[in-house]
């Protein structure tokens, strides 16, 4: 009887093994094969560009900066004499980012998005502070649904007006010089680390203080945002 029982157990075990024989593998060979991320996956923050003109969608309304709970987004865009905002710098510190996605929700112009990209590790911590050029480059191929309210005449006009301002930015020529853009990126980096050492300690309080009084002042942006 014992032999029979052992034999039965053996058959039972082999049946289970047989069931799994034809099953496909669940593991993937990472560097060659890559996992398909969900479209909504919140990876790294990127800046999106217009699909036709290739310019940044950003209108420098600063809503994302104020929505960010960790002050990872720093925008410097003072108004010029025509009360138009001119983008001096748009820096995202990926070491501070907590990937909550509030910036993306605050944006009404499809300008900032948490893209399903996850390969952005570096050897140097300072390389994780990204400027506008790098952010635009990362967002180049990110698909997105353009939900901006198109006001045909009005939308064209500011875009045309913005052109000179945007051209002054490196953003516009980044596209044709795609291979060149890479060497340009490390060039830009030394500038960022210089600003960094002071940043980690001062940033949180600084921006909080800034954000609090400014709450009442740029309410025109808020209204725009609520529409």
């Amino acid at each position, binding site marked *: 009887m014992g032999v029979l029982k052992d034999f039965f157990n053996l058959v039972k075990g082999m049946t289970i093994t047989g069931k799994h024989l034809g099953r496909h593998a669940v593991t993937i060979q990472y560097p060659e094969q890559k996992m398909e991320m969900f479209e909504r996956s919140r990876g790294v923050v990127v800046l999106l560009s217009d699909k036709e003109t290739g310019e940044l969608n950003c209108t420098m309304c600063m809503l994302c900066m104020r929505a960010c709970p960790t002050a990872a987004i720093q925008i410097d865009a003072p108004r010029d004499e025509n009360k138009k905002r001119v983008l001096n710098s748009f820096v995202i510190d990926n070491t501070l980012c907590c990937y909550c996605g509030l910036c993306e929700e*605050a944006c009404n112009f499809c300008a900032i998005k948490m893209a399903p990209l996850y390969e952005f590790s570096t050897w140097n911590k300072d390389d994780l502070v990204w400027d506008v050029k790098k952010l635009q480059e990362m967002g180049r191929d990110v698909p997105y649904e353009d939900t901006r309210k198109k006001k045909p005449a009005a939308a064209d006009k500011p875009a045309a007006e913005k052109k000179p301002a945007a051209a002054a930015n490196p953003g516009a020529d980044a596209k044709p010089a795609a291979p060149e853009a890479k060497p340009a990126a490390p060039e830009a980096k030394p500038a960022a680390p210089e600003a960094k050492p002071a940043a980690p300690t001062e940033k949180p309080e600084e921006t909080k203080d800034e954000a609090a009084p400014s709450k009442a002042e740029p309410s025109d942006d808020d209204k725009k945002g609520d529409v």
Partner: protein
Amino acid sequence: MSPLRTEEFTINMGPHHPSTHGVCRLILTMDGEKVLKVEPVIGYLHRSIEKICENRTYVQCVPLFDRFEYVTSMSCNMVFSLAVEKLAQIEVPERAEYLRVIMLELNRIASHLLFYGVTAMDIGALTPFLYGLRERELIVDLFEMTCGQRLTYNYIRPGGVSRDIPPEFIPKCREAVKIITEKMSDYEGLLNENPIWKVRNVGIGYLSAEDAIAWGVSGPVARASGVSYDIRKNDPYSIYDRFDFEIPVHHNGDCYDRYLQRLAEIKQSLRIVTQALDGLPEGEIQPKKKINAITFKPPAGEVYARVENSRGELGTYVVSDGTNKPLRVKMRGGSYNQLQALPIMIKDCLIADLVAIFASLDVIMPEVDR
């Protein structure tokens, strides 16, 4: 020659001990292998979330609550949202309520599956870990598909939820529920009658119902001691009063019953998810007057909100002074009380049993330390 004598000695378990599920230090007073006294030392994972909340706006607090108890972040989002909604008298749309319940219950299942795997691994069985995490993956994928993250969801917000579910969510969710329902027999078959598992768990770490109440223990640990108390039934929040489910109760109060209790709760959660999927209405997911992340100001006042988490009562006390930032936020996690009750559970236990008891409490340190 002096006679042989023994003396008590003190050893440290942790803070970096794999079975402490985080960084908890236990100072043990030992008599040989026997544990005489245990003194938990907490604070290694303190991040002062409560204080940070005071200079964030209400919506910005939600990601912080994600980090409060990261295994069931949905509950943490939920408890803060409930508090703010109570404070500002916000009406939550019907669809958002259903989505919340689906997410909360899926998260509870995911948490209990993690418990199933990790506890078994602490005691020395590797296979349950693979089983438990295999099915947890299905749920985590559902979350990622909906809100974009696998752990810190930031999904349930004051007023509703951040995003509607994608169209493929419902079929995938139904499939996941079906798979987990089928696999429940596998889980039970693997451990329930396993002689090693029973020797390690039955009668170990007894906690009486009186002690459980006295120490403020709640959740599955209290219910395994015979305290039939579940906030979903006793003080229903959201729309839990509409669903047909039971509160399982076990009476022995030992490690084995705590394990059985959690498996029984998975089954009830599966029932709730199925009912919520069936009843899911169409509609809005945010109130008509959408809450602005920066300028939202609830009226001055104070409020306590609580939900039933997979680790007991999860509560938050929010004091508002009428500005866009909370004046004070206090968090209450179930793990804290369960950890405090540990010293009374160690009667006559060996050091190996201590690992089993600690695992059966399913304590998670960020919830203790905040």
